[in-house]
């Protein structure tokens, strides 16, 4: 299997970026990275249990996509969604409390890491069923269209979902009915432990979109400015002209989940991708532009650390759902007269 010399991004960022906005993007990526690093510690202390899928390495996508969407654009996510949730604006307290399984969590502690939901930010959930969220996103988009809301429904999925039949069914229908859905493929090259070359006869996801008459673009998912720029253009196109797809080339540095000896890839490969770590390359870019120095970086790191400490304290102090509530919300608590 050949490893690309670099992340195969095709589009350079074209819009100039202000210092303020650049620092916001950096802050957003760093916030996700540090949040998850603390989650790993909490996991080893058994304060977070179950399955934990880290986004480390892929932060530029969530951080770049969210500012390019409107606050009322619905989002349907995956099980690797901490970054999406945080960048979208679900309060860190509520996300951390959910990781702890507490009532104060955004899913009341019922979902945990893989199933973050939040109606206030139109975050239609992470989901552990690969590909299962795609038809939902298409349906949400249909709902937006029928209710004359001029939004874009963002549908995140990984390269693993591209092998699912639902991916193809959804692209076909979205194109056929010109639905306002933005398909966002986070191609981190592995469906759990199966390399994309071993799963897809054609590894070019944009070619699959083309087969359904959907304009698509491959973007360097390690470059937050390229991500934001491409998302902005695609979202504009979706609002006026139906679905678009972006394939973000990215890489996860950590294991698939916490129990994964990573027998399917070499340490050298992981190290090569570290050269493209957005939390190395972007700060370097900002330093070169004079936007960032040690003092300002330390300040950002400090703010984030304070926020995370507060979130952990919040989650710790949270309460567990009483078993007497076990059967709540199996069905609606309000029934028609």
């Amino acid at each position, binding site marked *: 299997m050949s490893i690309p010399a670099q992340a195969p991004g095709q589009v350079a960022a074209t819009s100039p970026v202000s210092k303020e906005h650049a620092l916001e993007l950096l802050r957003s990526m760093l916030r996700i990275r540090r949040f998850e690093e603390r989650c790993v510690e909490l996991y080893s202390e058994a304060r977070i249990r179950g399955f934990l899928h880290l986004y480390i390495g892929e932060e530029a996508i969530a951080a770049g996509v969210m500012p390019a969407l409107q606050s009322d654009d619905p989002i349907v996510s995956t099980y690797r969604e901490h970054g999406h949730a945080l960048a979208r604006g679900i309060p860190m307290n509520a996300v951390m409390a959910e990781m702890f399984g507490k009532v104060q969590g955004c899913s009341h502690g019922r979902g945990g890491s893989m199933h973050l939901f939040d109606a206030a930010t139109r975050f239609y959930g992470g989901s552990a069923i690969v590909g299962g969220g795609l038809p939902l996103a298409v349906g949400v988009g249909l709902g937006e269209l*029928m209710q004359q809301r001029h939004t874009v429904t963002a549908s995140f999925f990984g390269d693993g979902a591209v092998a699912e039949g639902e991916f193809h069914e959804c692209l076909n229908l979205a194109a056929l*009915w010109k639905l306002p859905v933005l398909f966002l493929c986070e191609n981190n090259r592995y469906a759990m432990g199966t390399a994309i070359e071993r799963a897809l006869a054609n590894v070019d996801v944009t070619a699959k979109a083309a087969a359904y008459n959907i304009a698509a673009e491959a973007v360097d998912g390690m470059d937050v400015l390229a991500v934001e720029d491409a998302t902005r253009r695609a979202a504009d196109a979706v609002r006026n002209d139906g679905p678009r797809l972006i394939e973000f080339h990215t890489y996860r540095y950590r294991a698939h989940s916490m129990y994964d000896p990573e027998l399917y890839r070499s340490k050298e490969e992981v190290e090569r991708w570290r050269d493209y770590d957005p939390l190395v390359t972007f700060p370097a870019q900002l330093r070169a532009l004079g936007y960032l120095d040690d003092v300002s970086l330390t300040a950002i790191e400090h703010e984030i650390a304070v926020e995370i400490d507060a979130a952990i304290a919040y989650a710790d102090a949270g309460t567990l759902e009483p078993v007497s509530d076990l059967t709540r919300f199996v*069905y*609606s608590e309000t029934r*028609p007269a």
Partner: protein
Amino acid sequence: MTCVAEKTYIEAIRDGIREEMRRDERVMILGEDVGAKGGVFGVTEGLQKEFGEARVLDSPLAESLIVGVAIGAAMNGLRPIAEIQFQDFIMPAVDQIISEAAKMRYRSNGDWGVPMVVRSPFGGGVHGALYHSQSIEAIFAHIPGLRVVVPSNPYDAKGMIISALRDPDPVLYFEHKRCYRAIKGEVPDGEYTVPLDRARVVREGEDIALFSYGMMVHTSLEAADRLAADGFSCEVVDLRSLRPFDRPAIVASARKCGKVLIVQEANLAVSVASEVAAIIAEDCFDSLDAPVMRLGGPEIPAMPFSPPLEQFYLVTPNKVEAKLRELAAY
């Protein structure tokens, strides 16, 4: 004054959908051939003409997509009906129904519900062979978070489709295809509702309680008539809802009669009849005068095309009668 007319089961379903689409603009239909063709059996005939292509959508042949899109639309303010042409074809959509629709309210802690109706015909005896004859409702009756209903007559068919469309949770609405044109009954004009979670005693009796649903209600009634001539009175209960079961109604009729026969077209293992029998075993032990008996299909994977094999599969009034006589003699 409400006008009452005799209608077929299929007309009653269509009436109910039409009423609700006129009343509530959020109601929409999607599925294969629901629009221009009017549905594989004609349930949605004329609806696209009346309500337009934006509300009656012919979709590609992709069941998972049809149901998944309906779920997303339902979570986002619409009231979709997803039509699956035959219950046999629902399998690709089972992931969406069980993993997404049934769990959405629970896992989002009430943030989102899925007020969606999945309509689908089921049942055999129409020479449909392996994949146009099955009765797989028990798969869905097993799943908390879903509602599963099977109307047996036109009055209920209309009232229950309207209730289903007003329900905040996902409803699987199964129609026995032999009911479509064979079963007629009085149906009032205008809107009315029939509860989704109540069984109904369709014939009162004292000696044997007969539980069934869908087309089997009519088969059971015919058999009950035959026994009446010999002085045995059977109480026939139409379950109507397979999730949740109307436990008080089941218990009341079983206690009253002391003898019980459960009739379904589906094979018996791990089925609706199994659950009804379990409810009776748990709650009516002291009232029983005979073992609970069940009558259903054989344990084979599908209904064969071969005429004698298909005939052997089906539950007929003769078979019900024979079981009832066995119980009566116990």
